[in-house]
């Protein structure tokens, strides 16, 4: 599974530019489902047909990035955030554009350590000598993402874009492991989550699921002096209780918890004080959908070096497979 995760995280795909990552996922899903389609916004919808409850599983393909808003006379690129990008995450890191152009970050008053670092006082240096040269490679509106390889840290992994390529990996692996299901399973790889859960909104509207489960990363509280959060790496995937976009319906939470307990899959309960996931958009679709989220505990989310534990990922796959084996119509969905 590590190879899959490596390939997915290293692929370029900021919000609105999910074509490359979608192609890769499409190839992986080929043969595992009965039907595949890409909708208007670019969501990849893979359907494993069945007569039972319609289950929508969602993981977002997009990652955060930076968008060029100005090329100055000296060839430096000014930029804005696409999704939750913070200045301290960027400085000294490298980014890559869709065409392979690489850049690094600089800041105004470069020697000074005083004052708050702000995006509008930073710029991208792609090595261009002037505006003319920079304009050959990069245009206003082009989006770059972190340029970073995956590394193995013992039983843990570090990479960019675990948010949410790890969710994509979990869904792909679930599709591989799921021999049959009494339910109709919709594996949905969504777009534009990082800019406001947009892909999940339109795909859920189209699918009209009986139950929705998103798979995404969540924060942890297990690092030195971290804000209190009862989630640790390696203690199992999380059953989300609430975040800023959803209060998981008890019925969905209980389904996840009882499945984990009966199959002896380790799990943690997650209360995330900030942030949200596609689950938020799905549960408010049309007249409402019972929806929840299974999260992978991840440190340093939205940085180029997020860290997670591979066992949590494997256990998330087990949990998804066991849930999908159940006849969810009989469970009341």
């Amino acid at each position: 599974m590590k190879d899959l995760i490596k390939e997915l995280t290293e692929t370029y795909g900021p919000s609105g530019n999910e074509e490359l990552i979608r192609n890769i996922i499409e190839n992986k899903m080929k043969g595992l489902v009965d039907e595949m389609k890409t909708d208007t916004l670019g969501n990849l919808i893979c359907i494993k047909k069945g007569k039972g409850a319609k289950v929508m599983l969602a993981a977002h393909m997009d990652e955060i990035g930076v968008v060029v808003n100005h090329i100055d006379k000296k060839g430096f690129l000014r930029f804005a955030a696409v999704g939750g990008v913070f200045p301290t995450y960027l400085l000294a890191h490298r980014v890559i554009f869709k065409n392979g152009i690489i850049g690094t970050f600089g800041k105004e008053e470069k020697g000074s350590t005083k004052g708050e670092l702000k995006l509008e006082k930073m710029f991208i240096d792609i090595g261009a000598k002037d505006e003319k040269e920079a304009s050959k490679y990069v245009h206003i509106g082009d989006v770059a993402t972190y340029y970073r390889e995956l590394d193995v840290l013992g039983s843990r992994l570090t990479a960019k874009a675990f948010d949410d390529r790890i969710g994509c990996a979990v869904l792909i692996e679930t599709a591989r492991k799921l021999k049959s299901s009494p339910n109709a399973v919709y594996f949905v790889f969504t777009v534009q989550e990082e800019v406001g859960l947009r892909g999940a909104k339109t795909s859920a509207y189209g699918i009209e699921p009986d139950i929705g489960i998103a798979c995404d990363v969540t924060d942890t509280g297990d690092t030195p002096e971290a804000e209190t959060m009862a989630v640790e790496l390696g203690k199992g995937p999380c059953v989300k209780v609430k975040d800023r976009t959803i209060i998981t319906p008890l019925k969905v939470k209980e389904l996840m918890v009882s499945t984990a307990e009966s199959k002896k899959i380790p799990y943690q309960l997650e209360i995330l004080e900030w942030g949200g996931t596609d689950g938020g958009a799905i549960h408010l679709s049309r007249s409402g959908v019972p929806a929840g989220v299974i999260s992978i505990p991840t440190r340093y989310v939205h940085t180029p070096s997020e860290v997670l534990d591979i066992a949590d990922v494997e256990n998330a796959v087990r949990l998804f497979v066991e849930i999908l084996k159940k006849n969810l119509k009989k469970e009341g969905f």
Partner: protein
Amino acid sequence: MVSVPYGCCAMDNRGFSRHYFFLLDNESLFRRITEIMFIEKLSNAFGVSGNEDEVRTLIEDEIKDSVDSIETDSIGNLITYKSGKKKQPKVMLAAHMDEVGFMITNIEKDGWLKFNTVGGIDQRVLPSKVVMVGDKKIRGVIGIPPPHLTKKSERDKVIKIEDLRIDIGAKNKEDAEKYVKTGDYATFATNFSRMENGLIKGKAFDDRIGCAILTELLKDTYPFALYGVFTVQEEVGLRGATVAAYRVEPEVAFVLEGTAAGDFPIKKDLSKAAHVGKGPVVTHMDRSVICDKELVSLLINIAEKNGIPYQFKRPMIGGTDAGKIRTAKTGTKAAVLSVPSRYIHSPVSIASLSDMENTKRLISLTLRSLK
């Protein structure tokens, strides 16, 4: 032959020159002048978010003979439809009728009107402006004390909106209540006028300019069907577009906007957002939407093929109706094309007639090349 108001013949500039006029036949000349007169009417009209009736009536009167159906929905959107035989994706064009402005929140006992903003207005632009208030459009002044009566330290500060009042010349609360009620709207009392070089100035170019262009587009004939939607309450959260898109269910949508131009002097070598006179502004992404890439490419290709100047909007600032249209139901292919306007969301903006003309042309040609 038509009479020529506004000294049109003396204009020169940017695609709207004397020479250009000379080339127009009487019918085109008449139409161009009608267009300018219509943007004047729209700009001067009173239509703050939630109170768009005057603008809607103006538009309705102007286009009722050019469309096959016209209706106002429950929230106040004006939804028009032109039928056509040729098969094409279902297209919706949208422009918002509302402008930013004010609402009267309290009438004080000595007759002053306390007010708050509706939509985004920088409080630095408020002092010493003339406003019109309520259905009777009575004039008021957002007054501040003169230098004679203030200290330097006071003059160096921005006066907060809660410390400002509208003065309608009322003797007391009872007198004021003859003209104004709590909950009445107010907006800047700015008269539209022409400037040199084919420029125009007035209030509410965001988005009466879009309304003017959409009105003109609906007067043309097309071989395919078209929805023209004039939305309400964009400035308070894209509300009209939310329900209009749900109802129309377009496959393709273009939003016509008046967008912020930043071509005034700034020291740093940073994005100027857009320049007045340099053509229609194409949006890649803003805070509300990531536009459909195929539509963006199509706009650019059509512009280049036809020699229409264009520029890009500075990414990730502002938001438009396209945000709601793009994510309506199962999603819509949506793009935004804007006329750059300096100083929007203030008592007076400046825009270029040539940008308007080029925006209209670019949308018109793009519509005809949709597959």
